[in-house]
């Protein structure tokens, strides 16, 4: 291939491949990537009101920009051919990775967690997206929040979010990842309820927080189980002899950096023998655990439980069934927040988590099947709900849920690179769509109902153009842009991979994905047409919309450009002997080779090569059909029938979809109310009656009664006291006499 030859021999690229900072010093500086936005959050939060609006804007943007610069340096360093990481868990140096261990964070007994940061190709991509998109959205926010009194609070939270997200991505152990995981959840809560004077918005924040807590509970239990699992593995391989020096090295690594280090977990996955070819003394997934709390279960069963618990966590954070309900409500927060946290970065944390533990995931096809099916179901359901939403941000929120479902489909079938590719392109185009929606709201007196907008293309040309590009990117109608390639990479990967024992999953998920792709093109087409095309609605709140300022236009343009440019990464231009790889697949192969290798060894996922162009053509036809259907419906059919009601079944369907298929109500009836009732009973019986009345007030009451009875004895009369003493002496004397007589 000519292009890849060019890459190899061009002197400029040759020069670019040499990192200006060597990997070792970059790894030691990695904490600065997190510290800068953290410091920004501190300064904005504590001194923001004193500093004034312009200074706060400057500090917040500068902190993220500085972090972005460090991310670029880290990205550069990690791409250097000379970069290798010496991991304490294995003898072989890991190529294209850097990391630094900053010492023990906490330790108890044999359990220990180190504070370590690591960058490899996967986290390098992630930190570039987080700080890059984050910077654009900070710039956008300076204009969007220009009239808000709480600007300093807003930027403090936003900076804190960036810091926490970077912690999540850079962490080299699960507990540290969990710190970031919780931190972004906190920032999400704070920013959803940013306008807390409005009770509905404060409640939406609480809903998000509580639903996320349910997921986090799963994550925590999963982590505990995983610790037990690793120690059982350690104990059982201890008993076996002849395991070689690799295992010794891993054991040394565990005692140095703890059992939940991500590199260590990769090594565990590597050391597990395939269950169909057991080796003497080696642990396979069929091996029962011999001692400890997990005794009697096999390693494979526990692993599936761990991964499903992680899936519960990921479902909470990444808004999948059954925990997606918080994300649509989260749209009451400021629009830049929706763009940054609830579209581009935080909600993809679940996808990132599974990519990080991908080498464990491929060992458990049952868990993979569940993840893929949950993803497909979520994608389809959310896309159907998005059909009938009339709030511009709600449509985009359900679209986000749906696109995240796509990523989980890819994870479930082991196509990690496609999930990450879609994550990146989705971050670009969905942030662009959200910021576009924010721009529309800004120019139309905060109107969010798409039925009361319309015809904005002439009044807001920049917003309309960028929105159109992002819409095309997400759906792929008219032209295949980045989103088309990433989504197609997922569909293609899903179709060509088979899970051992769950062969039907692949085709079920694939069909769900195709339907979702059709729906995506339809609802995005509907959204664009209703907002920007046609005539201005008679109910519009302002007669003439105004285009936003440059700090809002610039990020829109940049994100739209990125949505287009990112398509290069989806082109299969790298020649790798047996077939071609896309740029992004090739780039991420340094990370995902291991899971793929494990999947081959354990025969859990089988991949068949098939033609790419047929799949592209099919996906494009579907996208065209969806978009075309929306065009016909909203440009011709509905305007021509204005006034006449729609057929009854369609209206019923639309009502159901508009209400999210009443899932919120089902949850309310099935879960929230029973829990509230039980809580009420517990409150009345246990808390009010038993603890408050019986235990707390009861002991006080008894003491008081006894005391007032005893108080009668205290007369203050010296003679009665003397009489008591005399009586006591008499008794003592009598006792002594009896003792003597005995």
């Amino acid at each position, binding site marked *: 291939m000519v292009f890849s030859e060019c890459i190899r021999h061009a002197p400029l690229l040759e020069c670019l491949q040499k990192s200006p900072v060597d990997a070792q010093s970059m790894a030691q500086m990695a904490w600065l990537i997190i510290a800068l936005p953290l410091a920004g959050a501190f300064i904005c939060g504590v001194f923001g009101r004193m500093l004034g609006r312009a200074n706060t804007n400057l500090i917040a943007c500068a902190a993220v920009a500085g972090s972005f610069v460090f991310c670029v340096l880290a990205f550069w360093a990690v791409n250097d051919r000379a970069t290798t990481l010496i991991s304490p868990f294995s003898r072989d140096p890991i190529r294209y990775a850097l990391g630094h261990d900053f010492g023990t964070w906490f330790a108890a007994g044999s359990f220990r967690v180190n504070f370590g940061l690591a960058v490899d190709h996967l986290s390098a991509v992630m930190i570039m997206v987080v700080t890059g998109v984050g910077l654009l959205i900070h710039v956008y926010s300076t204009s969007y929040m220009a009239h808000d009194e709480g600007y300093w609070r807003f930027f403090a939270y936003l900076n804190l979010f960036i810091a926490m997200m970077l912690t999540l991505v850079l962490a080299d152990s699960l507990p540290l990842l969990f710190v970031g995981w919780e931190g972004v959840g906190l920032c999400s809560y704070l920013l959803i309820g940013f306008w807390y004077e409005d009770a509905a918005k404060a409640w939406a924040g609480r809903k998000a927080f509580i639903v996320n807590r349910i997921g986090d509970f799963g994550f925590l239990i999963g982590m505990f189980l995983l610790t037990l699992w690793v120690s059982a593995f350690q104990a059982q391989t201890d008993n076996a002899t002849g395991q070689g020096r690799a295992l010794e090295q891993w054991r040394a690594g565990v005692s140095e950096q703890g059992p939940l280090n991500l590199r260590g977990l990769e090594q565990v996955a590597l050391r597990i023998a395939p269950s169909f070819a057991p080796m003497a003394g080696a642990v396979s997934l069929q091996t029962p655990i011999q001692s400890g709390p997990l005794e009697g279960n096999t390693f494979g069963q526990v692993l599936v439980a761990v991964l499903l618990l992680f899936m519960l966590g990921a479902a909470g954070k990444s808004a999948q069934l059954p925990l997606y309900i918080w994300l649509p409500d989260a749209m009451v927060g400021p629009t830049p927040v929706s763009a940054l946290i609830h579209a581009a970065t935080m909600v993809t944390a679940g996808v990132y988590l599974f990519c990080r533990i991908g080498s464990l995931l491929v060992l458990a096809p049952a868990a993979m099947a569940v993840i893929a099916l949950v993803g497909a179901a979520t994608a389809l359901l959310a896309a159907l709900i998005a059909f009938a939403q009339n709030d511009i941000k709600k449509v985009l929120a359900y679209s986000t849920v749906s696109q995240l479902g796509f990523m989980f489909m890819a994870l479930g079938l082991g196509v990690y690179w496609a999930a990450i590719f879609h994550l990146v392109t989705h971050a670009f185009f969905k942030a662009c769509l959200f910021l576009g929606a924010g721009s529309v709201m800004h120019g139309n007196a905060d109107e969010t109902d798409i039925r009361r907008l319309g015809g904005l293309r002439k009044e807001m040309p920049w917003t309309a153009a960028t929105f159109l590009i992002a819409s095309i990117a997400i759906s792929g109608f008219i032209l295949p842009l980045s989103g088309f390639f990433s989504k197609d990479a997922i569909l293609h990967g899903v179709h060509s991979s088979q899970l051992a024992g769950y062969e039907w999953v692949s085709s079920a998920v694939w069909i769900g994905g195709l339907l979702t792709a059709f729906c995506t093109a339809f609802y995005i087409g509907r959204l664009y047409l209703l907002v920007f095309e046609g005539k201005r609605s008679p109910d519009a709140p302002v007669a003439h919309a105004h285009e936003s300022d440059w700090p809002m236009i610039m990020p829109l343009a940049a994100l739209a450009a990125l949505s287009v440019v990112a398509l290069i990464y989806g082109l299969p231009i790298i020649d790798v002997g047996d077939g071609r790889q896309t740029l992004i697949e090739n780039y991420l192969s340094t990370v995902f080779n291991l899971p793929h290798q494990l999947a081959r060894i354990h025969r859990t996922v089988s991949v068949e090569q098939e033609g790419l162009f047929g799949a592209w053509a099919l996906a494009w036809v579907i996208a065209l059909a969806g978009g075309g259907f929306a065009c016909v419906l909203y440009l011709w059919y509905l305007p021509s029938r204005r006034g006449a009601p729609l057929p009854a079944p369609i209206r019923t369907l639309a009502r159901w979809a508009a209400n999210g298929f009443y899932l919120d109500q089902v949850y309310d009836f099935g879960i929230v109310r029973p829990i509230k009732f039980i809580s009420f009973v517990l409150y009345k019986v246990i808390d009010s009656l038993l603890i408050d009345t019986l235990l707390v007030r009861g002991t006080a009451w008894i003491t008081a009664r006894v005391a007032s009875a005893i108080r009668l004895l205290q007369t203050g*009369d010296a003679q009665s006291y003397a009489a008591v003493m005399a009586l006591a002496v008499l008794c003592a004397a009598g006792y002594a006499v009896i003792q003597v007589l005995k």
Partner: protein
Amino acid sequence: MVSTEHYLFLAALIFCVGMFGVMVRRNALVVFMCIELMLNASNLTFLAFARQRGDSMGHVSAFFVIAVAAAEAAIGLAILIAVYRSRGTLNIQDIRTMKH
């Protein structure tokens, strides 16, 4: 020959008289004298045993009790005078301040 038992019975009698007085008399001064009676009953016991054993331990103890009784009488009488000055009575029923 007067035996030790006789002394002891006398001492017990005097002690009981004193104790009874402490419990029933209303005048604080009389109560005080009754306490002296009880102390002297105990002295009698000490001396009876000293005579029986033929050593001086009992005498020493008796002297010690006399010294303590003297000190107690001095302080007690001073308190009684102070009480009488402030309240104008020595009736023990009217001086119930130990409750507070």
